[in-house]
Each structure stands twice: as structure tokens, then as C-alpha cells.
């Protein structure tokens, strides 16, 4: 596996700028498109470019998981539901930009300026992001996950199980119940 610390800085900058611009473009288009299907497709663009940025940070396993879990599984679910409830056929909810919403958006931009100010006054942040020796291969991640973080890992698996059971129970048809509300024997 190529260690990004030994890749030419010019190449690092080119990859970062391209991926960052694409991620921001995908995010902005996702928020502004009126059709939810278009929003979902632009969000996939943003997820893929974020996976590229993870690669430049030596996080190979997370980059692959990003493509599989986010761009694959979660976006597939979202597009499936959009088509299931017929949002793609023009029954699109018009966004009214009322006063409170505009104020909220402005306050959010102030939040971003605060984050940016905090980040750029951080002295240790101006060093190169890619430290030599830091590595995120599946082997390193697995050693931490099945050693130090074994208990949280088990909790996460229980959480996923609860999620699956909850989704099945929620999405079950109510026709199986009788009129008086009790389940059929």
C-alpha cells in the first residue's frame, strides 16, 4: 500500500483540491435540487469524493467502507424509498423561504465562520496533514477493533440487530390486525 507521506506534495494538492471541490459541488447541488432523486445522486457524488479524501489521509479501510456503506447501502435504501413513495414523479414539495428559515440559514453560516476561525488559529493545524507512519489499513484497524475496542464493537452489533428488528416491525402491514386492534389469532 502506498504511504501518502511519500507522495509528491504537488500531487497531494491536486488530488485534495479536485476532491474537495467535487465534494462541495455535490453537497451544494444536493441541497438546492428540487427533485429528491437528483439530490440523492448528487449526494453519491459527494460521498465518492469524500472517499478519495479519506484515501489521501491514509485511511484506506474507511475509504472502502465509505463507498460500500454510504454510497452503496444507505443511498440504495434512500433511493428505494424515494421511488416507493412516488416522490420522483413531480409531487415535489415547494420550499418556501420564510423569514425564520432565512434567519436560521444565516446563523448557520455564522457557525461555519466560527469553525473556520477556530481551525485557522489552531497552531498545530498548519503542519502537513499526512503524518508518516500513520496507517489505516484493515490490519491496523482490525487490531484496534478486536483488541482495545472489542466491547464497543459488540455493542454496535447489538445496535444493528435492534435496528433490523425495529425496521421490520415498523414496516409491517397493519392489515394483519383486526378491526378491534388485537392481532389475528
Amino acid at each position: 500500500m502506498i504511504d501518502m507521506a511519500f507522495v509528491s506534495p504537488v500531487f497531494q494538492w491536486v488530488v485534495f483540491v479536485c476532491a474537495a471541490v467535487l465534494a462541495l459541488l455535490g453537497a451544494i447541488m444536493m441541497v438546492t435540487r428540487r427533485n429528491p432523486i437528483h439530490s440523492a445522486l448528487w449526494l453519491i457524488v459527494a460521498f465518492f469524493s469524500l472517499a478519495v479524501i479519506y484515501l489521501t489521509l491514509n485511511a484506506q479501510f474507511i475509504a472502502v467502507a465509505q463507498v460500500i456503506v454510504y454510497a452503496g447501502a444507505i443511498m440504495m435504501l434512500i433511493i428505494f424509498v424515494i421511488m416507493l413513495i412516488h416522490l420522483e414523479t413531480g409531487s415535489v414539495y415547494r420550499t418556501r423561504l420564510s423569514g425564520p428559515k432565512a434567519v436560521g440559514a444565516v446563523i448557520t453560516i455564522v457557525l461555519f465562520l466560527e469553525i473556520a476561525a477556530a481551525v485557522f488559529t489552531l497552531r498545530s493545524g498548519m503542519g502537513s496533514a499526512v503524518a508518516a507512519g500513520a496507517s489505516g489499513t484493515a490490519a491496523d484497524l482490525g487490531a484496534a477493533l478486536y483488541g482495545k475496542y472489542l466491547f464497543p464493537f459488540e455493542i454496535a452489533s447489538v445496535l444493528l440487530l435492534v435496528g433490523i428488528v425495529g425496521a421490520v416491525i415498523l414496516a409491517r402491514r397493519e392489515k394483519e390486525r383486526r378491526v378491534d386492534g388485537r392481532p389475528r389469532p
Partner: protein
Amino acid sequence: MLHGVPTSFYFALSGALFTIGAIGVITRRNAIVVFMCIELMLNGVNLTFIAAGNMLGSVDGMIFVFFIMTVAAAEAAIGLAIFVLLFRLRGSVNLDEIHLLKG
């Protein structure tokens, strides 16, 4: 001599993604689009974790991201099931029309 990309740029990018997601949550009215904006905000946070972990030479940031992805997957399954249920009940997933708890 040109140095590599500073960590601050990664932090700024993640802040920008988080902000775009938050603006979407505030302004959009379609529940599924709002859900996608929340996923985008989670991704902004993930980028912060990975950049900071890389800066500190630690694998813990990636572990956090792994767990955030797990929670996001469970959240997607449950949330989308709720949207399907809501659509069956009300015929719409417009957030302005969902005010059952308003009293």
C-alpha cells in the same frame, strides 16, 4: 519547497460540508432530503475525526468513524421505515404537514 496539504484545510472542508448540511436541514421541507442532509453532516464529522487522527498518528479516529457508520446504517433503516409508515398514514412526507405533536 511546497509542503503537503495542512490539516486545517481538511477541517475547513468538513466544516463547510457540515454547514451545507445544516442549511439543508433548516430550509428543505421534504423529510427524505432532510435525512440526506443529516447524512452529509455526519460525513463532515467523519472527515474531522479522520484528519485529526491522522495528524496525531492514531488509529482511534478511524474507529470512531467506523462506529458512526454503524449508527448511520441503523438510523437509515429505522428512519426510512418511519418515512414509509408516515407516507402510508398521511400520504405525504412534507415536514410542514407533520404536526401531530403540536396539540
